Protein backbone atom coordinates (compact mmCIF):
# COMPACT_ATOMS: atom_id res chain seq x y z
CA UNK A 1 0.00 0.00 0.00
CA UNK A 2 1.33 3.44 -0.91
CA UNK A 3 0.44 6.86 0.42
CA UNK A 4 -0.24 7.97 3.98
CA UNK A 5 -2.16 5.95 6.53
CA UNK A 6 -5.52 7.45 7.61
CA UNK A 7 -3.97 8.30 10.99
CA UNK A 8 -1.33 10.35 9.20
CA UNK A 9 -3.75 12.24 6.93
CA UNK A 10 -5.96 13.36 9.85
CA UNK A 11 -4.07 16.63 10.32
CA UNK A 12 -4.33 17.42 6.58
CA UNK A 13 -8.06 16.86 6.46
CA UNK A 14 -9.08 18.94 9.46
CA UNK A 15 -7.93 22.37 8.16
CA UNK A 16 -9.57 21.66 4.79
CA UNK A 17 -12.86 20.89 6.50
CA UNK A 18 -12.57 24.13 8.47
CA UNK A 19 -11.96 26.04 5.24
CA UNK A 20 -15.03 24.46 3.66
CA UNK A 21 -17.19 25.42 6.65
CA UNK A 22 -15.80 28.97 6.57
CA UNK A 23 -16.52 29.43 2.87
CA UNK A 24 -19.95 27.83 3.16
CA UNK A 25 -20.89 30.11 6.06
CA UNK A 26 -19.67 33.21 4.22
CA UNK A 27 -21.56 32.26 1.05
CA UNK A 28 -24.69 31.38 3.00
CA UNK A 29 -24.56 34.77 4.68
CA UNK A 30 -24.13 36.54 1.35
CA UNK A 31 -26.99 34.56 -0.13
CA UNK A 32 -29.33 35.56 2.71
CA UNK A 33 -28.26 39.19 2.42
CA UNK A 34 -28.77 39.20 -1.36
CA UNK A 35 -32.21 37.62 -0.97
CA UNK A 36 -33.29 40.05 1.76
CA UNK A 37 -32.03 43.11 -0.08
CA UNK A 38 -33.80 42.02 -3.28
CA UNK A 39 -37.10 41.42 -1.48
CA UNK A 40 -36.94 44.83 0.21
CA UNK A 41 -36.06 46.70 -2.96
CA UNK A 42 -38.43 44.95 -5.36
CA UNK A 43 -41.50 43.76 -3.40
CA UNK A 44 -43.64 43.88 -6.59
CA UNK A 45 -41.19 41.52 -8.30
CA UNK A 46 -41.22 39.16 -5.35
CA UNK A 47 -45.03 39.13 -5.55
CA UNK A 48 -44.99 38.53 -9.32
CA UNK A 49 -42.47 35.69 -9.07
CA UNK A 50 -44.39 34.11 -6.22
CA UNK A 51 -47.60 34.15 -8.26
CA UNK A 52 -45.77 32.49 -11.14
CA UNK A 53 -44.22 29.93 -8.82
CA UNK A 54 -40.65 31.01 -9.53
CA UNK A 55 -38.01 31.11 -6.85
CA UNK A 56 -34.97 33.21 -7.79
CA UNK A 57 -32.89 30.69 -5.88
CA UNK A 58 -34.05 27.97 -8.24
CA UNK A 59 -33.82 29.70 -11.59
CA UNK A 60 -31.86 26.88 -13.18
CA UNK A 61 -34.57 24.39 -12.29
CA UNK A 62 -37.15 26.68 -13.89
CA UNK A 63 -35.02 27.03 -17.03
CA UNK A 64 -34.48 23.27 -17.20
CA UNK A 65 -38.24 22.66 -16.96
CA UNK A 66 -39.00 25.13 -19.76
CA UNK A 67 -36.31 23.78 -22.06
CA UNK A 68 -37.15 20.18 -21.18
CA UNK A 69 -40.84 20.75 -21.99
CA UNK A 70 -39.85 22.34 -25.30
CA UNK A 71 -37.64 19.41 -26.18
CA UNK A 72 -40.48 16.95 -25.51
CA UNK A 73 -42.88 19.02 -27.60
CA UNK A 74 -40.28 19.10 -30.35
CA UNK A 75 -40.22 22.87 -30.55
CA UNK A 76 -37.01 24.78 -30.85
CA UNK A 77 -36.98 27.01 -27.82
CA UNK A 78 -33.43 28.12 -28.05
CA UNK A 79 -32.77 31.44 -29.58
CA UNK A 80 -31.99 31.17 -33.27
CA UNK A 81 -28.26 31.63 -32.96
CA UNK A 82 -26.81 34.94 -33.89
CA UNK A 83 -24.22 34.55 -36.60
CA UNK A 84 -25.70 31.20 -37.56
CA UNK A 85 -24.60 29.90 -40.89
CA UNK A 86 -26.70 28.27 -43.51
CA UNK A 87 -25.58 24.70 -43.21
CA UNK A 88 -25.48 22.14 -45.98
CA UNK A 89 -27.33 18.85 -45.59
CA UNK A 90 -25.45 15.89 -44.14
CA UNK A 91 -25.29 14.21 -47.55
CA UNK A 92 -23.68 17.30 -49.06
CA UNK A 93 -21.11 17.40 -46.27
CA UNK A 94 -20.34 13.76 -46.88
CA UNK A 95 -19.87 14.28 -50.61
CA UNK A 96 -17.60 17.22 -50.00
CA UNK A 97 -15.48 15.27 -47.55
CA UNK A 98 -15.16 12.37 -49.99
CA UNK A 99 -14.07 14.71 -52.76
CA UNK A 100 -11.55 16.50 -50.57
CA UNK A 101 -10.23 13.21 -49.24
CA UNK A 102 -9.63 12.02 -52.78
CA UNK A 103 -7.84 15.28 -53.63
CA UNK A 104 -5.65 15.47 -50.55
CA UNK A 105 -5.71 12.21 -48.61
CA UNK A 106 -2.74 13.21 -46.42
CA UNK A 107 -4.29 16.17 -44.70
CA UNK A 108 -7.38 15.01 -42.79
CA UNK A 109 -6.66 17.49 -40.02
CA UNK A 110 -6.90 20.46 -42.37
CA UNK A 111 -10.04 18.96 -43.84
CA UNK A 112 -11.58 18.69 -40.37
CA UNK A 113 -10.57 22.19 -39.28
CA UNK A 114 -11.87 23.69 -42.53
CA UNK A 115 -15.16 21.81 -42.22
CA UNK A 116 -15.62 22.81 -38.58
CA UNK A 117 -14.80 26.44 -39.34
CA UNK A 118 -17.43 26.40 -42.04
CA UNK A 119 -20.06 24.48 -40.13
CA UNK A 120 -19.87 25.86 -36.61
CA UNK A 121 -21.04 29.23 -35.31
CA UNK A 122 -18.32 31.67 -34.30
CA UNK A 123 -19.03 31.26 -30.58
CA UNK A 124 -20.05 28.10 -28.73
CA UNK A 125 -23.76 27.55 -28.13
CA UNK A 126 -26.08 24.52 -28.10
CA UNK A 127 -26.23 23.11 -31.62
CA UNK A 128 -29.39 22.28 -33.49
CA UNK A 129 -30.17 18.69 -34.45
CA UNK A 130 -29.23 19.17 -38.14
CA UNK A 131 -25.93 20.75 -37.09
CA UNK A 132 -25.21 17.80 -34.83
CA UNK A 133 -26.15 15.29 -37.54
CA UNK A 134 -23.72 16.98 -39.91
CA UNK A 135 -20.93 16.78 -37.38
CA UNK A 136 -21.62 13.09 -36.77
CA UNK A 137 -21.01 12.51 -40.48
CA UNK A 138 -17.87 14.62 -40.39
CA UNK A 139 -16.40 12.79 -37.41
CA UNK A 140 -17.27 9.39 -38.82
CA UNK A 141 -15.67 10.16 -42.17
CA UNK A 142 -12.65 12.20 -41.17
CA UNK A 143 -11.72 11.04 -37.66
CA UNK A 144 -13.31 7.62 -38.20
CA UNK A 145 -14.82 7.46 -34.73
CA UNK A 146 -18.53 6.58 -34.42
CA UNK A 147 -19.70 9.50 -32.31
CA UNK A 148 -23.23 10.70 -31.62
CA UNK A 149 -24.74 13.81 -30.04
CA UNK A 150 -27.60 11.68 -28.71
CA UNK A 151 -26.95 8.13 -27.62
CA UNK A 152 -29.60 5.77 -26.28
CA UNK A 153 -31.85 8.80 -25.84
CA UNK A 154 -29.35 10.72 -23.73
CA UNK A 155 -28.02 14.13 -24.72
CA UNK A 156 -25.66 16.50 -22.97
CA UNK A 157 -26.73 20.03 -22.02
CA UNK A 158 -24.72 21.27 -24.93
CA UNK A 159 -22.36 19.58 -27.38
CA UNK A 160 -20.43 22.69 -28.39
CA UNK A 161 -18.87 24.64 -25.55
CA UNK A 162 -15.73 25.60 -23.71
CA UNK A 163 -13.53 23.04 -22.01
CA UNK A 164 -11.37 23.96 -19.02
CA UNK A 165 -8.33 22.34 -17.45
CA UNK A 166 -8.98 20.08 -14.49
CA UNK A 167 -6.57 18.50 -12.03
CA UNK A 168 -5.74 14.82 -11.68
CA UNK A 169 -8.27 12.82 -9.67
CA UNK A 170 -7.51 10.69 -6.64
CA UNK A 171 -7.68 7.13 -7.93
CA UNK A 172 -7.78 5.31 -4.56
CA UNK A 173 -7.64 6.38 -0.88
CA UNK A 174 -4.18 7.71 -0.18
CA UNK A 175 -3.28 8.37 -3.82
CA UNK A 176 -0.79 11.25 -4.07
CA UNK A 177 1.13 13.05 -6.77
CA UNK A 178 4.26 11.26 -5.59
CA UNK A 179 3.09 8.18 -7.45
CA UNK A 180 0.54 9.66 -9.83
CA UNK A 181 1.60 10.12 -13.46
CA UNK A 182 2.07 13.74 -14.52
CA UNK A 183 2.21 15.65 -17.77
CA UNK A 184 5.70 16.86 -18.77
CA UNK A 185 5.07 20.59 -18.26
CA UNK A 186 2.59 22.73 -16.35
CA UNK A 187 1.03 19.91 -14.35
CA UNK A 188 -1.53 21.33 -11.91
CA UNK A 189 -1.45 18.52 -9.39
CA UNK A 190 -4.31 16.60 -7.84
CA UNK A 191 -7.75 17.78 -6.85
CA UNK A 192 -8.24 17.56 -3.07
CA UNK A 193 -11.67 15.98 -3.49
CA UNK A 194 -12.81 12.85 -5.27
CA UNK A 195 -14.53 12.79 -8.62
CA UNK A 196 -18.32 12.61 -8.82
CA UNK A 197 -18.17 8.81 -8.96
CA UNK A 198 -15.77 8.51 -6.02
CA UNK A 199 -12.50 6.67 -6.10
CA UNK A 200 -11.67 4.63 -9.19
CA UNK A 201 -10.63 1.73 -6.95
CA UNK A 202 -11.05 1.12 -3.23
CA UNK A 203 -7.38 0.21 -2.82
CA UNK A 204 -4.14 0.74 -4.72
CA UNK A 205 -3.99 -2.95 -5.55
CA UNK A 206 -7.47 -2.76 -7.06
CA UNK A 207 -6.36 -0.18 -9.61
CA UNK A 208 -6.43 -1.99 -12.97
CA UNK A 209 -4.64 -0.75 -16.12
CA UNK A 210 -8.09 0.12 -17.50
CA UNK A 211 -8.88 2.30 -14.48
CA UNK A 212 -5.47 3.99 -14.75
CA UNK A 213 -6.32 4.89 -18.36
CA UNK A 214 -9.80 6.04 -17.34
CA UNK A 215 -8.40 8.58 -14.86
CA UNK A 216 -5.64 9.60 -17.25
CA UNK A 217 -8.10 10.39 -20.04
CA UNK A 218 -11.08 11.67 -18.07
CA UNK A 219 -13.67 14.26 -19.02
CA UNK A 220 -16.03 16.41 -16.96
CA UNK A 221 -19.58 17.17 -18.10
CA UNK A 222 -22.43 19.06 -16.45
CA UNK A 223 -24.56 16.13 -15.39
CA UNK A 224 -25.78 18.15 -12.40
CA UNK A 225 -27.65 20.53 -14.72
CA UNK A 226 -29.41 17.83 -16.75
CA UNK A 227 -33.14 18.52 -16.35
CA UNK A 228 -33.91 14.92 -15.42
CA UNK A 229 -30.73 14.18 -13.46
CA UNK A 230 -32.42 13.89 -10.07
CA UNK A 231 -35.62 12.28 -11.32
CA UNK A 232 -33.87 9.50 -13.27
CA UNK A 233 -31.54 8.22 -10.59
CA UNK A 234 -29.79 5.82 -10.28
CA UNK A 235 -30.07 5.10 -14.02
CA UNK A 236 -28.39 8.29 -15.23
CA UNK A 237 -25.58 8.09 -12.69
CA UNK A 238 -24.72 4.61 -13.96
CA UNK A 239 -25.21 5.54 -17.60
CA UNK A 240 -22.80 8.47 -17.42
CA UNK A 241 -20.16 6.76 -15.30
CA UNK A 242 -17.02 6.39 -17.46
CA UNK A 243 -19.13 6.95 -20.58
CA UNK A 244 -16.79 7.51 -23.53
CA UNK A 245 -16.91 10.86 -25.28
CA UNK A 246 -15.11 12.18 -28.31
CA UNK A 247 -13.67 15.64 -27.65
CA UNK A 248 -12.60 17.66 -30.68
CA UNK A 249 -10.71 20.93 -30.44
CA UNK A 250 -12.52 23.00 -33.06
CA UNK A 251 -9.53 25.30 -33.62
CA UNK A 252 -6.88 22.70 -34.48
CA UNK A 253 -8.81 19.46 -35.00
CA UNK A 254 -7.00 17.51 -32.28
CA UNK A 255 -9.28 14.80 -30.92
CA UNK A 256 -9.34 12.65 -27.81
CA UNK A 257 -11.58 9.85 -26.60
CA UNK A 258 -12.14 10.39 -22.88
CA UNK A 259 -14.22 8.81 -20.10
CA UNK A 260 -16.65 10.90 -18.06
CA UNK A 261 -15.41 10.75 -14.47
CA UNK A 262 -16.54 13.97 -12.85
CA UNK A 263 -19.44 16.41 -12.85
CA UNK A 264 -19.09 20.12 -13.60
CA UNK A 265 -17.97 22.76 -14.13
CA UNK A 266 -20.31 25.22 -12.37
CA UNK A 267 -22.58 27.09 -14.78
CA UNK A 268 -21.09 30.45 -13.75
CA UNK A 269 -17.56 29.59 -14.89
CA UNK A 270 -18.33 30.21 -18.56
CA UNK A 271 -17.22 26.63 -19.30
CA UNK A 272 -19.32 23.57 -20.06
CA UNK A 273 -16.73 20.78 -19.99
CA UNK A 274 -13.52 19.82 -18.27
CA UNK A 275 -10.57 17.67 -19.23
CA UNK A 276 -7.81 15.89 -17.33
CA UNK A 277 -4.29 17.34 -17.65
CA UNK A 278 -3.51 14.69 -20.28
CA UNK A 279 -6.69 15.44 -22.27
CA UNK A 280 -5.95 19.17 -22.27
CA UNK A 281 -2.29 18.69 -23.10
CA UNK A 282 -3.19 16.61 -26.14
CA UNK A 283 -5.98 18.92 -27.27
CA UNK A 284 -3.92 22.09 -27.23
CA UNK A 285 -0.48 21.74 -25.69
CA UNK A 286 1.00 22.46 -22.26
CA UNK A 287 -0.44 25.97 -21.98
CA UNK A 288 -3.94 25.10 -23.15
CA UNK A 289 -6.31 25.88 -20.25
CA UNK A 290 -9.57 26.73 -22.00
CA UNK A 291 -10.90 26.40 -25.51
CA UNK A 292 -13.86 25.61 -27.72
CA UNK A 293 -14.62 21.94 -28.28
CA UNK A 294 -17.32 19.65 -29.58
CA UNK A 295 -18.20 16.74 -27.28
CA UNK A 296 -20.15 13.74 -28.58
CA UNK A 297 -20.79 10.31 -27.07
CA UNK A 298 -18.77 7.49 -28.60
CA UNK A 299 -21.05 4.79 -29.93
CA UNK A 300 -19.00 1.83 -28.78
CA UNK A 301 -21.24 -1.00 -27.56
CA UNK A 302 -18.43 -3.55 -27.83
CA UNK A 303 -15.91 -1.37 -26.03
CA UNK A 304 -13.45 -1.40 -28.91
CA UNK A 305 -12.55 2.29 -29.09
CA UNK A 306 -9.53 2.93 -26.83
CA UNK A 307 -9.28 5.93 -24.56
CA UNK A 308 -6.71 8.58 -25.45
CA UNK A 309 -5.60 10.54 -28.50
CA UNK A 310 -7.28 9.83 -31.82
CA UNK A 311 -4.30 9.90 -34.12
CA UNK A 312 -6.07 10.41 -37.39
CA UNK A 313 -3.89 13.47 -37.89
CA UNK A 314 -0.38 12.11 -37.96
CA UNK A 315 0.50 14.37 -40.85
CA UNK A 316 1.23 17.89 -39.70
CA UNK A 317 -0.46 20.75 -41.46
CA UNK A 318 1.37 23.97 -42.23
CA UNK A 319 -0.12 26.89 -40.29
CA UNK A 320 -2.21 24.57 -38.13
CA UNK A 321 0.18 23.08 -35.58
CA UNK A 322 -0.48 19.45 -34.88
CA UNK A 323 -0.54 19.88 -31.12
CA UNK A 324 -0.51 23.49 -29.99
CA UNK A 325 -3.14 26.04 -30.89
Amino acid at each position, binding site marked *: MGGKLPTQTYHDIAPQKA*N*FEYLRNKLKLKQLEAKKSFAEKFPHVEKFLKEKG*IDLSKLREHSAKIIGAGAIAGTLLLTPPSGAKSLPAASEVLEKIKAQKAEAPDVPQKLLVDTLTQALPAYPRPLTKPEEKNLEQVFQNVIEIPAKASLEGEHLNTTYGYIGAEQHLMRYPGDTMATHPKIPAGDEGMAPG*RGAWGYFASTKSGLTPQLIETEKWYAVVQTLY*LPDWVRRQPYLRDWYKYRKVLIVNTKNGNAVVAAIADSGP*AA*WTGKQFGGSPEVMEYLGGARYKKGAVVVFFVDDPENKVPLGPVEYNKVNVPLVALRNI
Partner: protein
Amino acid sequence: MSKLFFDHLVSLEDIEKEIKKVATSKEEKEELWGLVDEIMHHKVMGCILDKLPRDNHEEFLEMFHKHPHDETLIDYLQEKIGENIEELIKGEIGNLAFEILNEIKIKAEKE
Protein backbone atom coordinates in the same frame (compact mmCIF):
# COMPACT_ATOMS: atom_id res chain seq x y z
CA MET B 1 -30.46 21.61 -20.23
CA SER B 2 -30.41 24.55 -17.92
CA LYS B 3 -29.43 27.94 -19.27
CA LEU B 4 -30.10 31.52 -18.31
CA PHE B 5 -30.00 34.40 -20.73
CA PHE B 6 -27.02 36.04 -19.01
CA ASP B 7 -24.85 32.92 -18.58
CA HIS B 8 -22.52 33.95 -21.39
CA LEU B 9 -21.62 37.12 -19.47
CA VAL B 10 -20.52 35.27 -16.35
CA SER B 11 -17.09 33.85 -15.67
CA LEU B 12 -16.18 33.29 -12.04
CA GLU B 13 -13.26 30.96 -12.56
CA ASP B 14 -11.26 32.30 -9.59
CA ILE B 15 -14.10 31.41 -7.25
CA GLU B 16 -14.34 27.97 -8.78
CA LYS B 17 -10.64 27.46 -8.03
CA GLU B 18 -11.18 28.38 -4.38
CA ILE B 19 -14.14 26.04 -4.08
CA LYS B 20 -12.13 23.19 -5.55
CA LYS B 21 -9.47 23.76 -2.92
CA VAL B 22 -11.84 23.27 0.02
CA ALA B 23 -14.57 20.87 -1.16
CA THR B 24 -13.76 17.22 -0.64
CA SER B 25 -16.78 15.64 -2.27
CA LYS B 26 -19.21 16.16 -5.12
CA GLU B 27 -21.90 17.11 -2.61
CA GLU B 28 -19.77 19.79 -0.95
CA LYS B 29 -18.71 21.21 -4.29
CA GLU B 30 -22.25 21.34 -5.64
CA GLU B 31 -23.55 22.94 -2.43
CA LEU B 32 -21.05 25.81 -2.77
CA TRP B 33 -21.71 26.12 -6.51
CA GLY B 34 -25.43 26.40 -5.75
CA LEU B 35 -24.89 29.16 -3.18
CA VAL B 36 -22.79 31.19 -5.63
CA ASP B 37 -25.48 30.63 -8.27
CA GLU B 38 -28.23 31.92 -5.96
CA ILE B 39 -26.27 35.01 -4.94
CA MET B 40 -25.50 35.72 -8.59
CA HIS B 41 -29.15 35.41 -9.68
CA HIS B 42 -30.28 37.93 -7.06
CA LYS B 43 -27.46 40.34 -7.88
CA VAL B 44 -27.97 40.15 -11.66
CA MET B 45 -31.75 40.48 -11.48
CA GLY B 46 -31.37 43.33 -8.99
CA CYS B 47 -28.92 45.09 -11.31
CA ILE B 48 -31.31 44.72 -14.26
CA LEU B 49 -34.42 45.86 -12.37
CA ASP B 50 -32.54 48.81 -10.90
CA LYS B 51 -31.86 50.12 -14.39
CA LEU B 52 -35.04 49.03 -16.14
CA PRO B 53 -37.89 51.59 -15.96
CA ARG B 54 -40.56 50.48 -13.47
CA ASP B 55 -43.20 50.39 -16.23
CA ASN B 56 -41.30 47.64 -18.01
CA HIS B 57 -40.77 45.36 -15.02
CA GLU B 58 -43.86 43.18 -15.52
CA GLU B 59 -43.28 42.89 -19.27
CA PHE B 60 -39.68 41.81 -18.74
CA LEU B 61 -40.61 39.35 -16.00
CA GLU B 62 -43.29 37.79 -18.23
CA MET B 63 -40.75 37.33 -21.00
CA PHE B 64 -38.18 35.99 -18.59
CA HIS B 65 -40.70 33.59 -17.06
CA LYS B 66 -41.52 32.13 -20.48
CA HIS B 67 -37.99 32.00 -21.90
CA PRO B 68 -35.38 32.30 -19.15
CA HIS B 69 -32.69 31.00 -21.54
CA ASP B 70 -33.40 33.39 -24.39
CA GLU B 71 -30.39 35.61 -25.11
CA THR B 72 -32.56 38.07 -27.05
CA LEU B 73 -33.76 39.30 -23.63
CA ILE B 74 -30.46 41.18 -23.61
CA ASP B 75 -31.57 43.04 -26.75
CA TYR B 76 -34.88 43.92 -25.10
CA LEU B 77 -33.08 45.24 -22.00
CA GLN B 78 -30.60 47.13 -24.12
CA GLU B 79 -33.43 48.91 -25.87
CA LYS B 80 -35.41 49.76 -22.76
CA ILE B 81 -32.48 50.73 -20.57
CA GLY B 82 -30.48 52.56 -23.20
CA GLU B 83 -27.19 51.56 -21.61
CA ASN B 84 -24.82 48.71 -22.28
CA ILE B 85 -26.58 46.15 -20.09
CA GLU B 86 -23.98 43.48 -20.82
CA GLU B 87 -21.27 45.67 -19.33
CA LEU B 88 -23.49 46.47 -16.33
CA ILE B 89 -24.08 42.77 -15.65
CA LYS B 90 -20.39 42.00 -16.08
CA GLY B 91 -19.58 44.79 -13.63
CA GLU B 92 -22.04 43.41 -11.07
CA ILE B 93 -20.52 39.93 -11.41
CA GLY B 94 -17.03 41.41 -11.09
CA ASN B 95 -17.99 43.12 -7.82
CA LEU B 96 -19.44 39.88 -6.51
CA ALA B 97 -16.24 37.99 -7.37
CA PHE B 98 -14.18 40.65 -5.63
CA GLU B 99 -16.30 40.46 -2.46
CA ILE B 100 -16.12 36.67 -2.23
CA LEU B 101 -12.42 36.46 -3.01
CA ASN B 102 -11.75 39.20 -0.47
CA GLU B 103 -13.45 37.15 2.25
CA ILE B 104 -11.24 34.21 1.35
CA LYS B 105 -8.13 36.43 1.37
CA ILE B 106 -8.99 37.81 4.83
CA LYS B 107 -9.22 34.27 6.19
CA ALA B 108 -5.92 33.29 4.55
CA GLU B 109 -4.19 36.34 6.05
CA LYS B 110 -5.45 35.53 9.54
CA GLU B 111 -3.90 32.05 9.40
